[in-house]
């Protein structure tokens, strides 16, 4: 069998076997106990040529409704945003995407500097002092923040708002289980975290208080109050944040956050059926040495030139082994690069303009729904999501919308039983006025 990924020729093979001093490749596998040697061939689908493979995969991809073929109003943590075309051109430079973790800095200055710039941009948006080089996603990043808080405070309880993404909360609980940390949920009050409840729940065993800003329902909470409650109790205040919203909102770092986490997916990263996205993790100075994952720092070479290296590695698993507080090794470097390019392209002006478009279009949609007689529940200010009470079962409605070329919103009844029949609708800058009007009309259509 010849294959375009395998350069070995018969004459290569012979010369190499001779140099080794064996008669066959099989001899090199003689240390595998005979009893367990695999004596048949894998039962896999037959190999495909490049042409046939692309045909088959295109057909599979074609079975899915996507946000190019449909107008998507689905958010809930993953968004259809403007992706500047240069993002894909940069991350397609194979010096970046075929490289490993930059363990040899002289050979990896490009990647190291790009990560340093990513760290800097995340600090700018979040108002935090230090950001790491990325985490798997927003959910595991929040879980790691909880573990950091428990380790730092030596306390064993986390309070997490029910207005935090339900799947993020689930991930936090699984990590907490491993570490024998209790997780209690702070109830909701009109779609926002009930701070009075927080006040009564917090106690001397509370390591951290976790909120989302804007929260899962799109509501912009005044999290300063939660920060004060946490700090009076010497608990860490942890904020999960959509970084795009921070272009116009007071950053968590200015509102008392000790740790800010989230997902940079809104910046140039495709939805990709849920991953890979790009978690970010940012902290105050005092927590610098507790950060999980890789950090890039600036330094100089022997001739005094500026350069970048992985630093403070004594925190990490390859040095500390079982004493490490996180096991993270690979991260989402390429997606951090994508986010950096998108943040550079949008730049200081573009992130504001894009965030403002999200808010303005969402306000327009809220008005349109209200005018059509829908109840828009929760009265607080919205970023790019809001909740509508629907007139028919949400799953039926969404299937109907698909036929009309629309990907509808998230069915909140799936994770909030009290919100059965409610839909979380996301309106990004990608949606036109006509598409918003069409959504309202199609939802109305059942009455016609």
């Amino acid at each position, binding site marked *: 069998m010849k294959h375009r990924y395998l350069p070995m020729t018969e004459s290569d093979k012979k010369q190499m076997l001779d140099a080794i*001093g064996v008669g066959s490749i099989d001899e090199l596998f003689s240390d595998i106990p005979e009893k367990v040697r695999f004596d048949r061939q894998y039962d*896999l689908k037959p190999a495909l040529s490049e042409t046939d493979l692309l045909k088959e*995969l295109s*057909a599979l991809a074609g079975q*899915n409704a996507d946000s190019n073929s449909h107008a998507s109003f689905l958010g809930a943590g993953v968004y259809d945003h403007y992706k500047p075309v240069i993002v894909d051109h940069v991350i397609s430079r194979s010096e970046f995407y*075929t490289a490993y973790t930059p363990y040899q800095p*002289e050979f990896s200055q490009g990647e190291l500097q790009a990560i340093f710039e990513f760290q800097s941009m995340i600090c700018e948006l979040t108002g935090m002092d230090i950001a790491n080089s990325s985490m798997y996603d927003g959910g595991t990043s929040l879980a790691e923040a909880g573990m950091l808080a428990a380790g730092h405070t030596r306390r064993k309880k986390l309070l997490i708002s029910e207005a935090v993404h339900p799947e993020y909360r689930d991930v936090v609980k699984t990590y907490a289980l491993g570490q024998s940390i209790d997780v209690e949920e702070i109830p909701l009050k009109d779609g926002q975290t009930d701070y009075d409840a927080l006040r009564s729940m917090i106690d001397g065993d509370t390591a951290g208080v976790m909120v989302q800003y804007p929260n899962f329902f799109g509501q912009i909470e005044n999290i300063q109050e939660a920060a004060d409650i946490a700090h009076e109790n010497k608990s860490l205040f942890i904020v999960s944040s959509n970084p795009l919203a921070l272009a116009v909102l007071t950053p968590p770092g200015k509102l008392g956050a000790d740790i800010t986490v989230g997902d940079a997916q809104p910046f140039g990263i495709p939805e990709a059926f849920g991953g*890979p996205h790009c978690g970010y993790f940012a902290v105050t100075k005092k927590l610098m040495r507790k950060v999980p994952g890789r950090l890039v720092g600036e330094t100089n*070479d022997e001739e005094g030139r500026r350069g970048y290296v992985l630093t403070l590695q004594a925190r990490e698993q390859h040095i500390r082994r079982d004493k490490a507080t996180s096991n993270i090794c690979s991260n989402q470097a390429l997606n951090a690069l994508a986010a950096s390019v998108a943040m550079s392209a949008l730049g*200081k002006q573009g992130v504001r303009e894009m965030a403002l478009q999200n808010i303005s279009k969402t306000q327009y949609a809220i008005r349109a729904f209200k005018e059509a007689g829908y109840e828009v529940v929760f009265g607080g200010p919205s970023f790019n999501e809001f909740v509508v009470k629907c007139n028919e079962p949400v799953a039926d409605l969404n299937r109907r919308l698909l036929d009309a070329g629309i990907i509808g919103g998230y069915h909140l009844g799936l994770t909030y039983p009290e919100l059965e029949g409610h839909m979380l609708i996301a309106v990004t800058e990608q949606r036109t006025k006509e598409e918003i009007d069409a959504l309202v009309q199609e939802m109305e259509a059942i009455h016609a």
Partner: protein
Amino acid sequence: MHKENQPLIFEISKEGRIGYSLPELDVPETDLSGLLPEGLLREEPAELPEASELDIMRHYTALSKRNHGVDSGFYPLGSCTMKYNPKVNEAAARLSGFANVHPLQEESSVQGAMGLMYDLQEHLVEITGMDEVTLQSAAGAHGEWTALMMIRAFHEANGDHNRTKVIIPDSAHGTNPASATVAGLETITVKSDENGLVDIEDLKRVVGEDTAALMLTNPNTLGLFEENILEMAEIVHGVGGKLYYDGANLNAIMGKVRPGDMGFDAVHLNLHKTFTGPHGGGGPGSGPVGVKKELIPFLPKPVLVKKDDAFTFDYDRPQSIGRIKPFYGNFGINVRAYAYIRSMGAEGLKLVSEYAVLNANYMMRRLAPHFDLPYDRHCKHEFVLSGRRQKQLGVRTLDIAKRLLDFGFHPPTIYFPLNVEEGMMIEPTETESKETLDAFIDAMIQIARETEENPEIVQEAPHTTVVSRLDETQAARKPVLKYNRPETAEPVAVN
């Protein structure tokens, strides 16, 4: 090569320039001060760069030229499997029906994506010899932790609350013990014997009623096959423990032996190693976990199942360890791995391992006269040399690594595994030609000669890179972890 400082994107920024293009707002603009409560309207804008599209493209192109990837040249980084990343995989992952699909869409609208995931799971079941596979874990370490959480839940479901110890060889990767800790388990180290394999007598000594699992990489990090694996499985299973297979080195054994047949109960795979997901400068990866029947009830939620010819996510799993990641894993990387498996087929995957092992043994034999070879037997897909002989002449393994940069080669993994003095772990992979291997061998032989005749040239390397050796001590003592604008009064360093 240029030797000047490379400007940061912030340093090329100029007020008033833009690099984006948004449509005109087609609805009335919202007055933010009217919408937001007091104190929540951002006062100071985030100081992101202001640059034109060309400025940005040039900046990142310049950075890419200061970086070495597999497409730039040979990258024999041991235990990382730096093989060629096929371009058709990239095209596949960018198909709109994969790239622009939302994870929370109605299942009926994503059957193609779910079908691909299901088929990939089935292929990985066959390749590993396990009974079921989940694609949820985002990376190898995430997979290790996921599987350990499942093993822990299995023991607890059996009322076995005292199985808290995970046995890990001293040659193991650092994520193994760290994953055990994060799963709330304690690490017990088992020693290697003089042949570089797990010391069976020491294993017998450390196992017991408190053993939750043994974590093993096979072939191990020395590139040697643990030929006593069946006896080890018997020992661990004999006391009621589980066997965990770290799939970092699966590239050595495809089509030759399967973890499931060797007695392993759980396995993680690194799709970004064996199955050509690009390493991306550190990620994203994908670390699916495969398990035997007994562990299936504990799989993370949701589990992808096929019902009446349709694919669906099953959340009704009462014994599940819970959710380990939002959504369903790193789908984009899984698409690439699927494209690779379908490109190779069964025969192709077997050849992958045969050629990876042939290449490694060839290099090992040709380099053995010039460097110390601590474990002199057939290796699998990688091998470890020791720089002891060179160290006696004043040249350390670090120096050898830096000197290789001058030849345009990425160095091997160095100082790992920890049980080899001045170790150099070399993994050529099957996608490299004999000519490339020979060029690297020649460079190594030349460096060995330089070490004897002209050690300064090695000690002072690299000579041709865009920077010379960097001061890592300074970086750690006075950490500068972000760009600080010169006009601000903030100190440059954070302490």
